[in-house]
């Protein structure tokens, strides 16, 4: 990996020495506005985030539930766009050298020009670009330009992915496998999906690529269970995006609730 920035490999190997899973919060870039979004992300870093998963808002987020849909709308209404997202990422990297994975819908990349998108965002400090609406069958459309831009690849596995596909996905992944804990769209759930443990176990037998689990995780206990199932990272989105929505009129409270929540998750996955 070029330009000396911190890699997924470094993070996962440091954490595995400590026998800990990575804490990976997800935010929509620019939610609810540029400055607050930057402050939120810095707060998450201070609360112990090991990797960031960030989305550029899109008009038609078909893999997202209501919480993140609303975040997309807030961010777009406040003027967020692809160029400004790059600017915000630069500012995050100025604050701390933390690996960043982008979570995208394909059309924004396609319109920008796939090769140029990967090159420009890598230069801004992004480590990988996961395309929510691109399956492994079309991986070559992005894997080649991603690799030549110096990016790692991240693909999704879901509870209905068969073992053959899992193997293919693992073989094309250099960053981590984004393991979707349940059949459904993003959104916090009360209970952790029953599928998680089996899914992580299956993947761990198939591959040595790091396994991070996301979708529906809303409590420190969920994160702890995922970590003890052997996962290398826990991705939390809707729960903390919901804290933004809940505290739109009180930035101080918003930041402190996010910090407290992530701190709680961090300690839950520490041992």
């Amino acid at each position: 990996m070029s330009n000396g920035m911190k890699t997924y490999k470094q993070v996962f190997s440091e954490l595995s020495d400590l026998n800990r899973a990575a804490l990976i919060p997800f935010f929509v870039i620019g939610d609810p506005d540029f400055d607050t979004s930057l402050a939120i992300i810095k707060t998450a870093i201070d609360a112990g985030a090991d990797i960031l998963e960030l989305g550029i808002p899109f008009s038609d987020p078909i893999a997202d539930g209501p919480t993140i849909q609303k975040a997309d709308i807030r961010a777009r209404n406040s003027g967020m766009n692809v160029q400004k997202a790059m600017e915000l990422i630069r500012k995050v990297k100025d604050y701390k050298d933390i690996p960043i994975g982008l979570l995208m819908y394909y059309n924004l990349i396609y319109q920008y020009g796939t090769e140029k998108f990967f090159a420009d965002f890598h230069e801004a400090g992004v480590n990988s670009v996961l395309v929510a609406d691109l399956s492994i069958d079309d991986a070559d459309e992005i894997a080649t330009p991603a690799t030549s831009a110096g990016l790692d690849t991240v693909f999704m596995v879901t509870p209905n992915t068969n073992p053959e596909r899992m193997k293919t996905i693992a073989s094309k992944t250099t960053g981590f496998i984004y393991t979707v804990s349940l059949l459904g769209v993003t959104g916090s759930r009360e209970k952790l999906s029953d599928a998680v443990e089996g899914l992580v176990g299956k993947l761990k037998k198939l591959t040595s690529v790091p396994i991070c689990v996301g979708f529906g995780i809303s409590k420190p206990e969920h994160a702890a269970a995922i970590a003890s199932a052997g996962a290398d990272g826990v991705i939390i989105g809707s729960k903390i995006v919901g804290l933004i929505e809940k505290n739109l009129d009180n930035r101080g409270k918003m930041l402190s609730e996010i910090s407290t929540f992530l701190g709680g998750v961090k300690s839950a996955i520490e041992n």
Partner: protein
Amino acid sequence: MKYKGRFGDYGGFYVPEVLMPVLEELEQAFYRFYEDEHFVAELAQLSKDYAGRPTPLYYATRFSEHVGFKVYLKREDLLHGGAHKVNNTLGQGLLAKYMGKTRLIAETGAGQHGLATAMIGALFGMETKIFMGVTDIERQSVNVHKMKLCGAEVIPVEGGTGTLKDAINEALRYWTAHVTDTFYLFGSTCGPHPYPTVVKHFQTCIGEETRQQCLEQIGRLPSMIVACVGGGSNAIGIFSAFLDDKDVKLIGVEAGGRSLASGKHAATLVAGRVGILHGAKSYLLQDDEGQVYETESVSAGLDYPAVGPEHCLLKDTGRAEYVAAEDAEVLDAFELLSKSEGILPALESAHALAFLCDQKGKLSSDTIVVVSLSGRGDKDVSIVEKRRPLED
């Protein structure tokens, strides 16, 4: 996936991983059953006895006099449910039954596809959920009521402008969470593979019948076929039988909305740029960065920013030509067909008629034009009443 589902570079299956297994299952089932003897026989029987196929090809004498050339109407408006949509819902519904699925979901704009799905849900005794934007629920309330009478649940979708695009987003989200028992009965020749191929297959009956009827009734093929294009299913259905007849011009008419210049329209092929939405690469109405526009049209069924991939290819190769008709012209055409023939066309279909009105004086009197009259206008009476109040 066995096939790539590409039409040139268009189409494909740009979907999240979670949907890949169900799309593969659908592809497999389609290729297993579509030529299966029992499936074909059962579909033929239902198409005839339940839906009312074949539909007539009608020579519209008085309308022809008005435009100055010979206009034949392919009467899909006479089908059960009031539109060509039932061809597709019978086919896919039967596929769902053969696959052992117990629940149907569908998106709808005008409510015609929703109604056609609700009918089939009742016919096969399947639970049916219809996703529909709140704007469309309001402007197509008669169809909403009909769907409910058929036992379907109509789920209002708030997002965006509450139109077809938003309904598809929500149906896809629901499907994502219920992939194991739910069959997504997609309404047009767009979306991810295999839908463009599946829907086209079940709509080719329009073109096959038309071609045969032209030969029998007129003794020759028409000079031109005209159809409205939303996602593109009635158009590809009627075009399909004529693709190799190079002398037959194929015209698709999109929704010009308020006007192309105003930006308030849904003329995807005429004014869009290639992009990716709802699982397929196609022309798309979008801003410079790739955010998808909210569209606008007097007809809910054409109010969609993407379009079927095969139409994109037909446009690029020049085999078909695509134009737009504005709301005002469409309402004129609606009134003209009603007055001259006593046939109320769906506002969607009235787009095709509006193109004919525009051709007045441009085509010779012996020119034969076939129009896909994709649906009837009962559902649109209140919209027309509002836009064009009758004088006492």
